């Protein structure tokens, strides 16, 4: 079985720039593929719902340029998943544009470029529901119904390995994929080389956040993964970082409900019987993973929809008496809002985020706040109408300045106002879909196009 080496320089392409020194070290290890995930649901529902990137194009271009130049120099394929944070069609088209621009600038090519679109029109899901498809809620969510779709502006399907394997087989040198399972973009080339589902998906799971699987903690440093039929070998490329059994195992459980299972279209990776072994100073080998196929194929759907416009106002309080009576102050301010605008939670909502007390943990906070020296309060107001959100937010914030307490000494103002203005925030969106839909073919929700980038004969060199 062919040994396959993959390098990945970043766990989320575009957020902050990759580190070039360890990437170059990885390039010197004779890799067969360069792979990077560019997506995340951690950025919240706004980027998907509004179809806007969360990352800055400066860093997206920086990373794509570094990887594309290396891939063309080494004559190896480059695979990028979940283009531009969300993996919508806009993200795929944006990354394809960047690849074309960089190729023209550096006179690269010709090479074959594959784009794989993962966005599904809301009406397409509506049609499938009508035709009897079950769109099953994950992790305790109710199944999707037409009302869920009414609240949804945009949907992406999360691809597995199949569409990526197809384009690799068709000779793609650069793959720009829409929303993809993080581990599938690594597993696809490993499966094409004949490696097991278990090793392929484990390798992907371990590498998807790049240097997060090493120690000490570092971001944006390159990791080398090697699969040769005797296990999955993970090596840190930064001179001061190591992949250890502890670091790899602790990454296996990172940001997941439980550490034993990773679900992908067609089954799940079972990590409960993995063993981890240090094979040299910087490398850990993992064996014992298994893959459990499922009788049917389900594809995950992510959906987001707009809820309201949003406005913010920032104040701080230093007076210990006011801080001690903050609940009364906020209660009074809310009472004034109700008087003027009707009940909170009706046509608008207001949230007082009290930094210094429990803004971070809110109801999960078990420790009563000791009297803080200062508190900062961010007032958040949401409302269908942007102008009304601004009006309500200004009063909701200014009422902290005019708070009425019987013993207050500071009768010139009971709050420090950072700037007497309402800040326009991005609209509030909500994750409406975290569901799976059963499909007959794992490719059926995705659309693939191949094109040639650069001049000359595209069949000359892949």
């Amino acid at each position, binding site marked *: 079985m062919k040994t396959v080496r993959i390098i990945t320089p970043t766990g989320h392409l575009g957020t902050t720039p990759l580190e070039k020194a360890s990437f170059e070290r990885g390039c010197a290890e004779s890799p067969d593929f360069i792979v990077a995930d560019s997506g995340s649901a951690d950025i919240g529902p706004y980027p998907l719902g509004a179809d806007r990137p969360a990352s800055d194009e400066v860093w997206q271009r920086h990373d794509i340029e570094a990887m594309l130049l290396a891939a063309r120099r080494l004559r190896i394929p480059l695979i990028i998943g979940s283009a531009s944070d969300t993996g919508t069609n806009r993200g795929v088209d944006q990354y394809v544009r960047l690849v074309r621009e960089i190729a023209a600038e550096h006179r690269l090519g010709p090479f074959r470029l594959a784009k794989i679109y993962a966005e599904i029109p809301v009406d397409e899901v509506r049609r499938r529901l009508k035709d009897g498809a079950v769109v099953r809620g994950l*992790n305790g969510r109710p199944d999707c119904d037409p009302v869920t779709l009414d609240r949804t502006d945009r949907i992406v399907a999360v691809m597995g390995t199949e569409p990526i394997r197809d384009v690799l087989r068709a000779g793609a040198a650069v793959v720009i994929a829409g929303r993809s399972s993080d581990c599938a973009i690594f597993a696809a080339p490993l499966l094409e080389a004949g490696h097991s589902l278990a090793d392929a998906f484990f390798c992907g799971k371990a590498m998807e956040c790049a240097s997060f699987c090493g120690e000490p903690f570092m971001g944006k440093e390159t990791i080398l993964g090697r699969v040769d039929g005797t296990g999955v070998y993970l090596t840190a490329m930064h001179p001061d970082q190591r992949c250890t059994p502890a670091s790899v195992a602790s990454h296996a459980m990172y940001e997941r409900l439980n*550490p034993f299972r990773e679900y992908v279209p067609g089954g799940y990776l079972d990590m409960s019987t993995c063993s981890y072994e240090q094979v040299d100073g910087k490398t850990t080998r993992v064996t014992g993973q298994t893959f459990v196929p499922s009788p049917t194929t389900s594809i995950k759907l992510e959906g987001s929809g707009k809820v309201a416009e949003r406005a913010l106002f920032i104040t701080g309080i230093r007076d210990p008496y006011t801080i001690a009576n903050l609940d009364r102050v906020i209660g009074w301010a809310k009472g004034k809002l109700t008087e003027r605008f009707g009940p909170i939670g009706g046509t608008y909502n207001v949230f007082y985020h009290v930094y210094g007390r429990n803004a971070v943990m809110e*109801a999960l906070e*078990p420790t009563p706040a000791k009297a803080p020296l200062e508190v900062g309060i961010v007032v958040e107001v949401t409302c269908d109408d942007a102008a009304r959100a601004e009006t309500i937010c200004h009063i909701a914030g200014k009422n902290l300045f005019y708070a009425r307490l019987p013993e207050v000494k500071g009768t010139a103002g009971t709050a420090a106002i950072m700037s007497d203005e309402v800040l326009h925030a991005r609209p509030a969106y909500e994750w409406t879909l975290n569901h799976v839909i059963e499909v007959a073919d794992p490719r059926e929700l995705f659309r693939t196009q191949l094109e040639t980038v650069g001049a000359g004969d595209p069949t000359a060199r892949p």
Partner: protein
Amino acid sequence: MKLVELASTIRSKNAGVDHITFDVICRDRANFERVRDSGVLNRGAVARLFGVEEGRVTDFVVFEPANAIKFTIRRLRPSGSMGESDLFGAQQYAPLFDVEIP
């Protein structure tokens, strides 16, 4: 001894859009066995610590290969909904520091 002295990593993070997961990773095997065998950390105890119903603790796992204990709490609203306080769920772990391990 307090948990913070026995663990090398105590962290919280989103696990998908509907959950926050907590990882307690011990410095070494001895510390891990001490934490595990004390039985102080269990599904009911973490539910009480964070003031949530036990049903919201969806997973509680002892993960031997990483010398770790992991549990997951279901969010009341998906991450990033209006009024969100911690989009990444990254700052919810601090109350675990002071848990006394005999």
